[in-house]
């Protein structure tokens, strides 16, 4: 059993809702509401769920980009929130983030070479005269031709921009990378290229990823463990093989069955969930999923199911299991 590189313990992130004349806090959006998991060194942990389930906020809270309300984030045993500003800044290069939208995450007025190299200078990791070679090297590694170093972002396609985004994170030689829906804005034929780039980089550099996605088929391809989130809580957590072979939570089952399979001869029994995702400002009492659950019981309306281990690290939060 290897020590986890990063572990999250009962993490909570609440955003206050201001209202009234004096802008007092009238409630909270519980974006992340008590999530725990651990990511082993060199593995890819997938976080899946629908929009508004708190998966992105979890990623940002881990990197201290959103304020936590409670809980712990341990990186190599060190609580990130216990670090002062100076120490946290020193650690930043090791913890990097790749964004979803390659169009809005690059400054259109900055040449890509400068955008990629910026953080290296900022952190004083390299003398200026060596920077250019380092940037070119990183671009090459991410499948970008080094000739493009003096071009501007608008001259690149979506897939290439995402490679730039990855290069920006990679040049700092990080240990851990949060990839927040890095391929959902891309075309199908380009998605495959970026997925392969992620796995190549992992093999070459021994990176650890937190891969946030709403697409279970991508997560299955890339990740070794998967957490399924619903309305700020972890519904199910297991390693990949176990989760796909033996999904236990009704929400996981529904998610799996909702994905269209590119084979017209397969006609599956599909679990179509009724209704929409409730608002995280006012989540249902009891099990948060009970309003849409096809097998909900009376007990689910009152009692919050705890996340329990059902064997071999497979955890699920459901009264039925």
């Amino acid at each position: 059993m290897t020590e986890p590189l990063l572990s999250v313990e009962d993490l909570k992130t609440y955003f206050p809702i201001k209202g009234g004349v004096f802008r007092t806090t009238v409630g909270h959006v519980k974006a992340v509401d008590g999530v725990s998991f651990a990511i082993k060194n060199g593995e890819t942990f997938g976080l899946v769920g629908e929009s508004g389930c708190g998966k992105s906020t979890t990623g940002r809270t881990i990197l201290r980009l959103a304020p936590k309300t409670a809980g712990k984030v341990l990186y190599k045993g060190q609580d990130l929130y216990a670090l002062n500003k100076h120490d946290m800044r020193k650690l930043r290069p090791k913890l990097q983030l790749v964004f979803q939208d390659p169009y809005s995450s690059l400054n259109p007025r900055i040449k890509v070479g400068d955008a990629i190299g910026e953080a290296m200078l900022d952190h004083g990791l390299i003398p200026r005269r060596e920077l250019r070679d380092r940037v070119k090297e990183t671009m090459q590694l991410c499948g970008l031709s080094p000739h493009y170093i003096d071009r501007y972002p608008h001259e690149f396609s979506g897939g290439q921009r995402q490679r730039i985004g990855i290069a920006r994170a990679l040049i700092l030689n990080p240990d851990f990378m949060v990839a927040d829906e890095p391929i959902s804005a891309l075309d199908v034929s380009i998605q495959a290229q970026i997925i392969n780039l992620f796995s190549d980089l992992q093999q070459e550099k021994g990176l650890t990823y937190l891969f946030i996605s709403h697409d279970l088929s991508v997560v299955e391809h890339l990740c070794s463990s998967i957490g399924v989130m619903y309305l700020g809580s972890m519904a199910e957590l297991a390693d990949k093989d176990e989760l796909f072979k033996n999904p236990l939570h009704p929400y996981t089952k529904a998610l799996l069955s909702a994905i269209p399979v590119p084979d017209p001869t397969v006609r599956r029994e599909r679990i179509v969930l009724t209704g929409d995702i409730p608002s995280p400002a006012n989540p249902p009492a009891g099990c948060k999923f009970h309003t849409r659950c096809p097998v909900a019981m009376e007990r689910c309306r009152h009692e919050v199911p705890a996340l329990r281990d059902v064997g071999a690290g497979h955890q699920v939060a459901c009264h039925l299991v």
Partner: protein
Amino acid sequence: MAKDLVEFRHLRTTFHTEGGAVKAVNDVSFNIKEGEIVCVVGESGCGKSVTALSLMRLVSLPGKIEGGEILFEGKDILKASDREMRRLRGNQLSMIFQEPMSSLNPVLKIGEQIMEPILEHQIISKKDAKKRAIELISLVGIPRPEAIFASYPHELSGGMRQRIMIAIALGCEPKLLIADEPTTALDVTIQAQILELMKELIEKFNMSIMLITHDLGVVAEMADYVVVMYAGKVVEETNVLELFKNPRHPYTKGLLKAKPVINQRMERLYTIPGQVPNPAELGNHCFFADRCESCMDICRRQYPPFKEYEDGHKTACWLYEKEGMQP
């Protein structure tokens, strides 16, 4: 054998931009039969949306329909007067869009937006139109239709807004529903609901659907007939079973292989190398040549003819042109 409802014949739509003329739709021909779901697949910029907009005659400057015919029930839409066109749009031809938030008017109540096309196209009293609108809201599977009738778009979720878009489109019982990436902006569980709903409605209304998508999973689930587009041209078309069993064009094959599929593990994903060519700089050769694994000399010199090879399976590829040149 069902009749053809829509026939695209050598349609050309060009955008005259500063960077040159972009042939967004470049000699596109295919048919949509009555009661059939035709999926148009391709990546962004391949011309699938512009094909649909040409059919609605909603291409705006600098775009222009420059040639060809679009027959709707045998009549050429491109020759119809603006008045005739207004009578078709929202009535026999309806369209729903990808982003349900930006296609609904935020300052009008849901009910008014559903009633608008009904009052425009039918001789009906306002009271009956309201009744019809409430029926439509419950038809698309939204509970409490009276309350929803009086609410504003911002009060609804993405999935509900897309249902409202469908309700508006169905108001006059159209013969053809054009759905341009209707589920792309939605979550998977909501996508499943909307696709289910569309399947139910096609039976109820006996209409045809032109479904534009980039998701081959959606194609497999929904389509009767598939048209694959690349860089403004149709590269392959056939019925859905044949397409998935026996894809012919290397681009179609690549798309099918590049998509990760649940419960089918592989070490590495197949990738189509390179990227979509700049639409303003297309030559006379096959547009896919630079990305194609089985590219031959002729592919770089001449665009392949679009031909039917067997049983309605049409493709534009030199690989199938001559005997003995099989891959």
